[in-house]
């Protein structure tokens, strides 16, 4: 839909984000990690929309944040328009932020309820010195609002006075206010009702055409992602398992997980539904703190083989032009040499502690937590 140039805007290499799990007697020591993102390479070209899908908790948001250095990556580097962000800090990083923006999942919580729309929008401009006089700023604000389809009377209002869809528009306008090149949209529509969702999707598309933006769209709804993306990456448990352009991924999913995911998305058409072949996975997503060895998916994979799957982690390899997959047996599955079989569900053990104990030292946690009179 948009003209995709071949120059790369963002390049992610060997990205890892591990959150330490801390525990200890007096001082916290790290007893393990949540492998939220565990070795992801991807590159996004100028002007394209890259879609990232995967089940909840597989590390999509973390990856998105790490790309913008909103979360400090454990390893790997991000090159943005030729500049390596990895070692950037402080003021240079802050200035750099102008060029890469984020739209958040929950439109309400990502807007400060105590700031008027105007101050929300001006804030970023001021931070980057784009606020050049009252008049030009005013003009710019009205432009922004009309770009996202909000009346200019909105400036005086506060976030709670808007509906969900409108709030998401404000979030988008805020991202646009600093004239970025890249927008990472983290589940921009999943909190919205279907009809509103459609409005926002259309808007995103329009803005891209108008401003030549590059998007990384994160979602768990495959249909949405496929609809707006040029290329789609599928994540499973911290790693990319497949990457292809969005038609390919639908017509010819290569990774067993992609296949399962694809088949699980219900289609609002009884005719299709009646004949659709579903690949039902057994069991649940394993814990990212304790990921399975070898191929992360092998515990639920209907095509799992005796060898390699549980010992060797498959690398992402290009099977067809632009179509990468991380599966040892991708060709065999594609060509029907391996058949799906039944998988017994396994217990997923959540043996790690999410409740990061913040009262780590000295002190009655409860005394201080609940403060009754």
């Amino acid at each position, binding site marked *: 839909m948009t003209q995709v140039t071949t120059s790369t805007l963002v390049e992610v290499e060997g990205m890892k984000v591990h959150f330490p799990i801390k*525990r*200890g*007697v*007096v001082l916290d020591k790290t007893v393990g990690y949540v492998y939220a993102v565990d070795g992801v390479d991807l590159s996004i070209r100028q002007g394209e929309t890259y879609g990232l899908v995967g089940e909840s908790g597989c590390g999509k948001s973390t990856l998105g944040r790490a790309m913008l250095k909103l979360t400090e990556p454990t390893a790997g580097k991000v090159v943005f328009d030729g500049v390596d962000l990895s070692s950037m800090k402080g003021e240079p990083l802050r200035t750099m932020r102008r060029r890469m923006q984020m739209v958040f999942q929950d439109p309400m919580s990502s807007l400060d309820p105590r700031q008027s729309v105007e101050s929300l929008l001006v804030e970023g401009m001021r931070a980057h010195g784009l606020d050049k006089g009252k008049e030009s700023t005013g003009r710019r604000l009205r432009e922004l609002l009309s770009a996202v389809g909000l009346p200019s009377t909105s400036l005086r209002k506060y976030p709670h006075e808007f509906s969900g869809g409108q709030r998401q528009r404000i979030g988008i306008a805020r991202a646009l206010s600093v004239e970025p090149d890249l927008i990472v949209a983290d589940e921009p529509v999943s909190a919205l009702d279907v009809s509103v969702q459609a409005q926002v999707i259309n808007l995103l598309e329009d803005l891209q055409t108008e401003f030549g933006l590059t998007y990384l769209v994160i979602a768990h709804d495959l249909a949405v992602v496929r609809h707006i993306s040029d290329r789609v990456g599928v994540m499973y448990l911290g790693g990319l398992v497949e990457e292809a352009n969005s038609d390919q991924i639908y017509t010819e999913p290569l990774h067993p997980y992609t296949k399962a995911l694809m088949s699980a998305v219900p289609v609002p058409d009884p005719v299709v539904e009646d004949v659709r072949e579903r690949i039902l996975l057994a069991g649940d997503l394993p814990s990212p703190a304790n990921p399975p060895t070898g191929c992360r998916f092998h515990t639920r994979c209907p095509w799992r083989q005796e060898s390699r799957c549980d010992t060797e982690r498959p690398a992402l390899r290009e099977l067809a032009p632009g179509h990468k997959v991380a599966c040892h047996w991708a060709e065999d599955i594609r060509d029907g040499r391996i058949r799906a079989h039944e998988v017994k569900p396994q217990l997923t053990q959540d043996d790690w*502690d999410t*409740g990061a*104990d*913040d*009262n780590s*030292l*000295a*002190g*009655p*946690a*409860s*005394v201080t*937590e*609940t*403060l*009754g*009179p």
Partner: protein
Amino acid sequence: MLRYTIRRLLQLLIVVGVLSLLLFAWLRSLPGGPVSALLGERATAETRARLTEELGLNDPIFVQYIKFVGRALSGDFGVSTGVQPGDPALDIFLQRLPATLELSILAIIIAIAIGIPLGYLAARRRGSVLDNLSVVSSLIGVAVPVFFLAFLLKQVFAVDLGWFPTAGRQEGGIDATRVTGFFVLDGILTQEWDAAWDAFVHLILPAVALASIPFSVVFRITRASVLDVVDEDYIRTAESKGLTTPVIRRRHVLRNAMLPVVTTIGLQTGALLAGAVLTETVFAFPGIGQALAIGFERRDYPVLLLLILCSAGVFVLINLLVDLSYALIDPRIRTRGGGH
């Protein structure tokens, strides 16, 4: 769980350590002090100076603290100068602890025994006269200064009506054997029923006064938490199972509603200690609170230091216990093995 307990106990030590240093330095900086307490108005400036020197109060605070710690480690926390002059501070603490515990336990029992059922009723009849009445009266309970309430109770029930004794833990004439220091318990253990009864009667008024604040808090938390729980989805699930009302109430509502109440009760131990200072003073009840009040008045450093430290320790310890018991009721914490 064990790990967590050990960790919290270590934290407790740290708290006590830091607190002891702060308290020590601070108590030493108070004017007056043991010299005045020991000598009274009869001494001359010279005698005062001599005693100050003798007691080592002219040394740098740090030196004094080191000495104190050295002695404390061997179990010597100094000797009282004002509360019970001549008695080791530790003895005073150990002797008075049962008194305050006895009183606090009864107060907490009263607070719970009235607060929880009333809170539950008020929540179930939200907006009713009973509800509004008990809410307002619980707020009044918080707004009345404890010492004044204690005073009124005593005036009405002890002096005017004569139903209860006015002061102390036990009549002087009763020949009671001391075993544990808990007078009621002692009486029961030795089968000196009159002594037990007498001690119990002495507890009632102060305990009621002391219970006023914990009662209000327990009541309000229970009410709020029952209201919350009743609206929870799982209660709806329980309803959808067709369970009978008593089962829902007992198994589903109360059990969940008790979680915050348990925490609150732990927190209230702090309020109890503070309240004990006032209540025990008014009722001449020889417990920790009274010792604190007298200790402040007479600048009894060793006793104050030990009592405040121990109160803080007990407070922290009780909260640890509460947290542990919380974990027993709430499986979410139990299995996670951590804080909240």
